[in-house]
Structure formats: C-alpha cells, structure tokens
C-alpha cells in the first residue's frame, strides 16, 4: 500500500498522470496506455535495460534513460516520442536486426507474400520465407510494425550458430536471439532453476548452460518458462512449432499429478496444439512442470488413440458399432454372478466417472468389487497414507513456511511447481531439509540432505518422533553393512528447529510410497507432524486419489467416505438408488487380481494392471489407447481423454477443480460415465439416466460435501472426511540377514509415476522418453566397473523372490552398493528394499 505522500504527478507527453513511488516510467506509461516499445521488459521479471528500445527523454536528465529501469520522481517531465528519440530508436532497432534474419520483418513483398502463402498446389511448396516458426506471434515483428521500420541500413550478419535440437521438447535457434535475457531472468528469478546464462561477451555472447552442457545435464527442468517469455522465434516448442496462431483457449485442470495445476489448452482447428500455465494464484500461479507444459499435446493427439470400439475373436480385431459393443458388454455382465465381476478404475478419472463406476458396480450389479490401482501402489500403507491425506495443508502454506522438510520429494520433472514454491520460501529466509536416498534436485539447495540407506529411513523418522517427544531417547542406530552415514546429531538439531519454527511444513513426495516399511513411515510422519505442530502436505502421484476415496471407488468405502460396513448408510443408499445393496464382505480387489484370482468379467476403466492378459473369462478394456497385443482384451471401448470431457478433480489439498472440454473426442470415443450409463440402461437398470456431468454432480452433492456448482466455483479447500478403513494385506518378506553374502547389493525400485490412465507418458510422448525412462537400472560407476557392466548393458538382477533384466544406466547420483530400478507401471516386484546380486547378461 502506498502512503498518500508517495503518490504524485508526472508529465508524460504532455499528459499529467498520477504515479506512485517505486514505479518505473514504463509502468506508469503502460498503466495509462502510452505506448513505449520494449523487447526485454516483461511484467513478471526485474527490469534489465538491455534492448534500449524504451529510451525516453526526461527533462533535466542527461542522454536517453531507459523507461524500464528509471523510477518515476515527482514532477518529472517525460517525452516518449520526440523526433530525436524516434531517430535513435530506429537506429537501435536496426542494430538489433542486423544480427537477425529479417525477411519476415522487412520485405517489399511482405503484404502480398502473406496473402498468397496459402496458395493451393499439387505438391508441398513453401511460399514465402520460413526462417522462424513464430511468424505472427513475434514481439519483434510487432515492434518493427509499430515503429514502421522499412529498411535496414546495416549489413546483415548471420551468426552461423548451430540450431540446437538435441534436447527434448524445445528447439533453440540462437541465430534469432536478440539477447534480451528474458529466458535467463525467468530461469533465475521465477523458477530459480539456474540453468541458463549469458556466455562470453560482446559479439560472441550466446545463451546457454555453463560449459556447453546439454540442458538435460545442466539440471533444466523443462518447465518451458523460457519458451513462453521468448519475444522471438529463438525458442520454440517442438510439438506445435509450425502450427501458427491459436484460435481459442480453454482453462482446465492438469491430470498428471495431484497438484492440479490450472492449464490453458491452446486450441486450433478442433485440436489441442499446446498448453500454457494459467494464472491461478491458488494453485500453480502461472507455473507448470514439463508434464503439464509439454507432454499433454502429444498425449492427447497421438495417432494411436482408440477411435472405434472393437472386439477380438481368436486374436483377430473386429470393429463393431457402439450399439453392438454396449449390447455385448451388457449381455456378458448380466450373465455374470455379482461375486465374479470386478471393476478397476483409474484414479485419473473424474469424480463423475468414479461415482458412476461405483454406482454401476453397487447398484447395477450388486457387488462391492470396485477398486483402483492405488491399492496396489500404496499396499499395506494405504490406511496410514489416508490418515496423512486427512491432514493435508494448502499449497500456499509452502511459500509462507519458515522451515520445509521434504521427505522423498524430487521436484525436477514432476511437481516442479512445488519446487518453485519452496524456493520462494527460501528467499524469504526459510530453511530446507530433505530426506531422500538418492541425489535429487532439492539436495543442491537444502541446508541438510539426510541420505538414508534404503531400509533405514523409518529409523530416521522414528528417531525424529522420539526426540520430539522430549524423551530424548534416540532409536538405536540400525546396524547394517550398507550404512553410509549416521545422523544422530543432525536429527536432534533438526527436531529443535522444527519445534522452534514459526510455521514448519512437511512435504511428502513419492520416493517412500512403495517401501516395505511405508506404513511405519507414514505413521512416523503423522506423529512427527502432530508433535512439532507442523503442517503436512502429501503429494500423491495419482491426480484424483482424493476424489476416488470420496466417491467410494473402493470395496471398503461408500460415497462420502463412509465405511461399507456401516449398515445404516448402506440402507440409505439402497433407498436412494432403488436397489438393495449387499452387505460388505472382503471379496475381490486389485491385489487379488495381481495374485491371480479369477473372475468371469473384468471391467478395466483407464487401468492397465498387468502386461499380459489378467485372469478373467471376459475382459472389457476401456481406455484412450489400445492395450498391448499380449493383453488380449475381449472388448475394447474408446474413452475420451480429459481434454474432451467436462468434470471435476480434487487435488491433494482437497480443492475441487473443474475439468473443461476443449475439443471433441477422436472418432467415436465417449466419456467413461456415458459408456457406463449406456451399459447400465441396456441391462435395464434404473438410476443411470444422466445426460451430462452436471446431473451426476447434482446427485453427488447430496452424498458428498462441496459438490454443488456454486461451491465448486468458490474453490475452497475441503478437508478429507473418510471414516472407512482399507483392508490391507501384510507387506512382503523381510530381508534375511544371511543373504547379505549372496546378495551384496540393495535395490530400490520405483514404478514410473508419470502415467495417465495406466500408460506411462514415455509410451506416447517422444520427449518424455529421455526424461522418464523405464526398465532402467541405475548403478554407481564404481559398482558397475567392479561387476563389468557398462552403459546400456542388459543386467540380470536376482533376488530371493524374483529375477529381472534391466538396462544399465551408470549414474554418479547413485550411492555405492545401492541400485535403483525404474519399473514399468505394471511391473511389480514387491515393496522396497530388496537384497540382490547382479550380473551382465550373456557374460
């Protein structure tokens, strides 16, 4: 807030304008719609004064100060467009353009050329000059147009720089760069990823990471912030490079993790051609990660998308009409006894889809056998994780925290929006601690990185809990041959800091989600949170895990988070739905599916639980992509992706967020709820006469709090209210001590979490292949040398319970003696860690 005496008047071009202290001349001019040309200035970045386009005359000041860096002062008399300024400005613009291909800027044929670029020919001919893909969306073009520059009186110098196309997602042609430094500033100031810099000086200056490393090696997060701010065509996105200007923009919610970033879908010709972060102060505040910024376009546009329903007869694909498909599905399901039917639905689906799926299972079939892959993902720790989710803090608590403790969190590619918030807190003086077994991007900026040996993280957390209980009794140090470091001293210091901290927050990533001791880990996190009065924010990889719990997509849970054993609630729902619901008994679930329990009909909605045919007589596979050939689904139904439907998600904070339709689904694909409703109606069941998601929400709003349209628009945070408990199986076998000789390595494995509807992003998105590789074994260089393994060798990993083959990736980030495997989403080898031995294949 500016005090009254901080407000004064200035004179710009003869207009008396109100200005306040701290503003620059450019800001005051822009506020009053006075045009001053700029190239390097950007509203979100600090002034730079590099391009010199915004020079003005200020009475009493020497020379031509730049409007973007000069603060206004009382009584200033400023002129922005005198004949002399015009002359100098034109000269500067010419100098900038003397190193820039300018056929699209200054050309005698420009007007005519543009008009006839669309000439119809029989062969592909490029009409007009095509140096740059940003034609029509270029700020340099705008400035040239506004200043009416017609010719360049300097010789044009082409820098002959190699166009950099090696990194995924965006190309860099620094021959088009005007060195405005916006990309560097956005990388340093907003993302604080510190990847880019000016290299060399004078006429040799180029932009790039230190030592000419690739962006991938230099720690780039591929968030695309630099591409968004580039005023020229120097930086361009690979997927939509030559698409031209967009026609329309729709704001929706990204489904690729539980943060629920608001994204703008860029639409053209009925197609999503790109995504940009939406300015949403509640969630992502104009930031995105690589998944939301670059992966979505390819994910929803891939030509492999399912377009028509089909069934398989003896391995042969027969395309059928929707009518036939619905009839076939209804027939098979009607003929199937309730206890032999199972439905698996992805937590990537919207609340409306999830609700209809569980209503379909309960009311149309009379079974509780509906589940999601989250049960397998969280295993024995599901209940403990649920307890943590009930305590979820808000995303805005991160930047206001005075101490941030990250547990198993890496914010480089996924959740990078959280990384930006953490760095905001650090700028305000917060302290950052991180617990992670492997090198991760937060380790560089954390005050302390506790690196537990796999299997000892629970000791660290329990020690923290014990210390915080004032008993001052540390847990006995775990004796392990793999122990690298002991942390007793650091831990008591950390607890003291946590206790004293004004507003501590604990962020839970996904590293420890698939550990044998994960129930104890979550339990310890919960206790610690309560003891030190910290906030906690679990960040599950499944975007709508919250929604799947509230909508009742599990055998143990009814809509609204009620337990399925609660008879009163069952009766209430029976009355509402007009069908007597059976009493709950723990029958089939996702774990049983993997264990091999056979069903008559298995209905998979957005789930790919196995790499081969799961045990069932009849499999309905409903997804946006076809199953792998070995999967042998009997009936395949094409669903619509999130860009093609209306609906809602709930993010990890508990905020209900809208999903908005941007384009029509490809071919005949339909939204999941619609397919389910049509099958139920075909089966003659009542209560499925919905014609749009709004009607489903209306029914939902009676069962779950916060679901009427008005409340959704308010976007408040609803805490998770869930009374039900999951029936969880005990986790895997402990490592036998005596095995240490036979199995000299410790292996942790994480199944890829960058998935959408059961498929890894790297399957459908070209650039993601470089970022999120699967089937990879990461190994320390020294371990690799000792075992005679080199990069990309096939390595056989043997444990007492499995033998797998992965491709080796030698990585300095991996501590000695410890291996890390990145698994395919359907690959399951049991909870971490595993004692293993390795050998090179064919050796």
């Amino acid at each position, binding site marked *: 807030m500016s005090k009254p005496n901080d407000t004064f008047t200035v004179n710009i071009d003869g207009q008396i304008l109100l200005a306040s202290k701290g503003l620059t001349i450019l800001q005051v001019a822009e506020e009053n719609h006075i045009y001053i040309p700029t190239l390097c200035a950007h509203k979100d970045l600090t002034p730079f004064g590099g391009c010199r386009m915004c020079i003005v005359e200020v009475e009493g000041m020497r020379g031509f100060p730049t409007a973007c860096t000069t603060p206004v002062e009382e009584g200033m008399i400023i002129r922005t467009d005198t004949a002399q300024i015009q002359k100098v400005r034109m000269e500067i613009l010419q100098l900038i353009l003397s190193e820039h291909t300018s056929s699209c800027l200054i050309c005698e044929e420009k007007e005519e050329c543009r008009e006839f670029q669309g000439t119809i020919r029989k062969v592909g001919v490029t009409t007009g000059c095509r140096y740059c893909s940003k034609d029509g969306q270029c700020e340099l073009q705008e400035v040239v147009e506004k200043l009416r520059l017609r010719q360049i009186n300097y010789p044009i110098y082409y820098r002959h720089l190699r166009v950099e196309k090696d990194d995924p997602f965006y190309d860099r042609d620094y021959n088009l760069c005007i060195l405005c430094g916006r990309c560097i500033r956005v990388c340093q100031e907003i993302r604080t990823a*510190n*990847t880019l810099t*000016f*290299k060399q000086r004078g006429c040799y200056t180029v932009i790039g990471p*230190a*030592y000419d490393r690739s962006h991938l090696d230099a720690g780039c997060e591929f968030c695309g912030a630099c591409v968004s701010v580039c005023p020229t065509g120097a930086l361009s996105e690979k997927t939509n490079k030559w698409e031209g200007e967009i026609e329309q923009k729709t704001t929706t919610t990204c489904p690729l993790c539980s943060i629920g970033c608001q994204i703008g879908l860029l639409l053209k010709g009925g197609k999503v051609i790109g995504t940009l972060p939406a300015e949403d102060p509640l969630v992502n505040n104009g930031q995105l990660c690589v998944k939301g910024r670059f992966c979505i376009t390819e994910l929803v546009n891939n030509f492999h998308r399912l377009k028509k329903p089909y069934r398989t007869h003896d391995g042969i694909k027969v395309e059928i009409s929707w009518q036939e498909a619905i009839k076939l599905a209804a027939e098979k399901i009607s003929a199937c006894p309730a206890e032999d039917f199972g439905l698996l639905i992805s937590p990537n689906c919207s609340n409306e889809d999830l609700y209809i799926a569980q209503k379909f299972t309960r009311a149309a079939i009379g079974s509780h056998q509906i589940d999601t892959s989250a049960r397998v993902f969280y295993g024995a720790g599901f209940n403990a994780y649920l307890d943590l989710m009930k305590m979820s803090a808000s995303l805005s608590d991160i930047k206001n925290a005075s101490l941030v403790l990250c547990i198993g969190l890496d914010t480089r590619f996924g959740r990078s929006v959280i990384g930006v918030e953490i760095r905001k807190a650090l700028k305000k003086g917060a302290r950052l601690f991180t617990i992670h077994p492997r090198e991760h991007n937060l380790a560089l900026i954390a005050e302390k990185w506790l690196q537990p040996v796999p299997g000892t993280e629970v000791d660290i957390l329990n020690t923290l809990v014990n210390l915080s209980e004032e008993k001052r009794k540390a847990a006995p140090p775990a004796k392990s041959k793999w122990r690298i470091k002991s942390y007793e001293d650091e831990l008591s210091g950390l607890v003291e800091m946590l206790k004293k901290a004004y507003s501590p927050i604990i962020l839970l990533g996904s590293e420890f989600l698939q550990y044998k001791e994960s129930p104890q880990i979550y339990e310890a996190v919960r206790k610690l949170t309560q003891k030190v009065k910290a906030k906690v924010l679990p960040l599950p990889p499944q975007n709508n895990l919250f929604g799947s719990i509230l909508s009742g997509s599990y055998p143990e849970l009814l809509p609204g988070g009620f337990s399925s054993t609660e008879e009163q609630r069952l009766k209430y729902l029976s009355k509402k739905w007009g069908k007597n619901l059976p009493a709950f008994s723990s029958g089939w679930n996702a774990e049983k599916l993997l264990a091999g329990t056979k069903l008559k009909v298995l209905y998979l909605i957005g789930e790919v639980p196995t790499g081969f045919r799961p045990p069932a007589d009849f499999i309905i596979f409903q997804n946006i992509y076809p199953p792998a050939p070995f999967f042998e689904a009997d009936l395949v139904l094409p669903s619509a992706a999130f860009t093609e439907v209306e609906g809602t998600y709930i993010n990890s904070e508990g905020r209900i967020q809208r999903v908005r339709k941007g384009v029509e689904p490809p071919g005949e694909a339909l939204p999941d709820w619609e397919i389910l409703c049509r099958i139920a109606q075909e089966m003659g069941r009542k209560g499925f006469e919905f014609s749009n998601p709004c009607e489903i929400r209306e029914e939902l709003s009676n069962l779950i709090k916060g679901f009427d349209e008005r409340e959704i628009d308010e976007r408040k945070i609803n805490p998770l209210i869930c009374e039900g408990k999951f029936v969880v199986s005990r986790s895997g076998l402990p490592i036998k001590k005596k095995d240490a000789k036979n199995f000299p390595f410790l292996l942790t494995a994480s199944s890829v979490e960058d998935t959408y509807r059961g498929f890894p992003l790297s399957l459908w998105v070209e650039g993601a292949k470089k970022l999120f590789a699967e089937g990879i074994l990461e190994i320390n260089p020294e371990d690799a040398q000792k075992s005679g393994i080199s990069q990309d060798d096939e390595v056989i990993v043997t444990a007492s319970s499995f033998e797998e083959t992965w491709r080796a990736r030698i990585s300095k980030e991996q501590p000695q003696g410890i291996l890390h495997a990145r698994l395919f989403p359907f690959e399951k080898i049991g909870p971490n860690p595993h004692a293993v031995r390795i050998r090179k294949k064919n050796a």
Partner: protein
Amino acid sequence: MTKEIEEKILSLKGKFPKVKTAILPAFHILYQESGYLDPEGMEKISELLEIPLMEVYEVASFYTYFPSEKTGKYIIRVCDNLSCLLSGAEKLIGYLEEKLKIKVGQMTPDGLFTLSTVECLGSCGTAPVMMVNEDYYENLTREKIDQILEKLSKK
C-alpha cells in the same frame, strides 16, 4: 584444490554484502593456484560460495583475462585494436607466430609461452603494446620482441 586454498575462498564469503562479489577474488586465488580456471576448480568455487555454477561460469566467460585452458608460463597478450594495428601490431603478431612456431591462442610445446591477442590495453600513446603476464612492453619492434623473448626464455 588444497584445504588451504579452500579455506581462503571460504573466508571471502563474509567480506562482501553480496556473495556473488566474491567470485572475482576467488578466481584470482584459483588462477594463482592452477594458472587457469579449471572446470573442477570452478565447480568447487560454486560449491564453497554456494553460488550456482552457471553464475560462476558467466563471470569466467566474461573476463577474458582468466584463461580457461592451461597456459604457458608466460602469457603474451598483444593488443590488436585500432591504434596498435595502425602502428603495425598485425605484423608483430605474425612475427611472434613465426618465431614461437604457434598460432594465436596456442601454447609452445615447452610450456613457456602462450600467445593471445587482447582488446585495448589503454596505452595507445605507446602503441604497439603487449603484455607479458603483468608487465607492459611498449613501442614494440621486431628487435624488441627478440630481446624480450630471449630474456624470458633464460629466466
């Protein structure tokens, strides 16, 4: 990098209101130590001063005075700007190349001399000028160069 040097660099940390300012003094220390800014040394500076490597590199690539590769015992920097060029610097550079049997930017095989050119040394009145390590040599001629090189080789 020795412990002693590390401590020297660390002690720079509190000296300036902004840590970034300590990059240049740290470079001087590293330069005196290893004769050039080696990548490992720069990484160490970034680690010790807690400044992102890319910011350290930015400064290093800006100041041409700090060589980024191993150099000879003597670095000869000949000015090739206008005043010196008019006074025959170009020919002298050619003479030096011929005499040392290396090109500009290279080092003699015996590790004694590195030849490079430099922007204005601020001594146009006594052009042509060159700098050998930290000493100026002015009003250069072929004979003078012969003498200088002979003297230096004997040292």
